[in-house]
């Protein structure tokens, strides 16, 4: 399931600095909620992982050991040790462990490249981490935390129905 075209058009036209700021806040919030997220990575934590949503002109580069995330346009994405490409909603579902990575790979909805040992370690680390994005990120919405969470859960429910 792909993001609606009007939404991707809007996101792709946002200034990169703004996207970087929002994504950094989301990433830091997620790390606060799940401080042990990268524990399972071991020596793979020093690798650079590139997440490339196939329906957006963006690439997200995660460097676990420095607990940092960088956003770039696809054409300017730096070289990484390992990468995964797939629809944005599929990547988010994998992040939450709502779908099985192997099954998505078998179906060819997802492509992986580079250092597979690092990628497998990251997959297993994420899978063991009980991400719940609507709950984890609701606090960022301040007084609108409740409605944000309800809306996000609704969006997730509809998105997952199209994935599984």
């Amino acid at each position: 399931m792909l993001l609606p075209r009007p939404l991707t058009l809007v996101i792709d036209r946002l200034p990169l600095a703004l996207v970087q700021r929002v994504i950094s806040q989301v990433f830091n919030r997620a790390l606060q909620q799940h401080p042990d997220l990268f524990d399972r990575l071991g020596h793979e934590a020093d690798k650079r992982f590139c997440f490339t949503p196939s329906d957006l002109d963006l690439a997200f580069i995660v460097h676990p050991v420095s607990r940092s995330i960088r956003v770039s346009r696809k054409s300017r994405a730096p070289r990484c040790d390992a990468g995964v490409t797939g629809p944005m909603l599929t990547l988010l579902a994998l992040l939450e462990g709502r779908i099985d990575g192997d099954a998505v790979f078998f179906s060819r909805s997802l492509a992986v490249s580079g250092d597979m040992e690092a990628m497998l370690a990251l997959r297993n680390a994420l899978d063991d981490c009980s991400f719940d994005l609507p709950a984890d990120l609701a606090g960022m919405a301040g007084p609108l935390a409740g409605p944000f969470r309800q809306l996000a859960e609704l969006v997730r429910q509809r998105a997952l129905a199209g994935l599984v």
Partner: protein
Amino acid sequence: MELICPAGTPAAYREAVEAGADAVYCGFRDETNARNFPGLNFTRDELREAVAHAHSRGVQTYVALNTFMRAGSEDTWYRATDDAVAAGADAVILADMALMDYVADRYPEQRLHVSVQASASNVDAVSLLVESFGAKRLVLPRVLTVAEIANIARQVDCELEVFAFGGLCVMAEGRCSLSSYVTGKSPNMQGVCSPASHVRYREDGPDMVSELGGFTINRFGEGEPAGYPTLCKGRFHIADDDGYAFEDPVSLDVMEHLDALRAAGVTALKIEGRQRGKAYVAQVVSSLRAALLAPKDERPQKLAHLHRLSEGQRTTSGAYDKKWR
């Protein structure tokens, strides 16, 4: 029949318990078990917590210590066994006869299960392990028909567990050297089949090419369902044909033989997949639990969706329904 379910992480473990497992099997984060994959498995503390959680829900924990001890490093396996017993494991799953002897000698009260990796596939082999080490259960290799399983069950003095769903090996369990041949590492010794460190994928036009140890082992056309990058599921050029020489990328599903397995005297059904995510564990365990409780005519409907989770998105009943001899 009991449902024995896989867990590669504590999160998957909790899902298995929630979804209706009778027992969950798992391993430590080292070479003492046959799923020694990066980021997978349990620390000693995680195992203790998992065992306590499972016991509070009436679920058992089996600890897989099912690789073969490396000469000179036997202590690694002995320590893992000591820790599994201390953590309260309800059974240890072993393949190496020396480790079975260690358990039988040191922990005579500890329940001992024989791993599929021991490759015991006839009455004499099973009986030897029962008589020598007090094995209470044997996990049968996936090489037998239902009739052969029934024949063994009638003649042995232990419980039998069979694989019901999940990944399918090349049927030389505990003896397969294909991964060693290409990568120097094997599930039998290092606990890794086709280790991720030796796997690469690359795109070649619309095709996805998988490589193992520097060898191209498969090429999947656009949209063609993929499989694991193991040599046994590689495609080979033989004479004038390109195809699968050992086996197709396909998963095992023997649930259509459920009643026959029950009648054969099988005690437990095992789900393969400690390397799979918690979503897989939750979905497969709950579906198989529902099927076990359902009348025969309702089972297919409860299992129909599982092929989408399977390797190559296809399933087979494999040797259980052997037609090739």
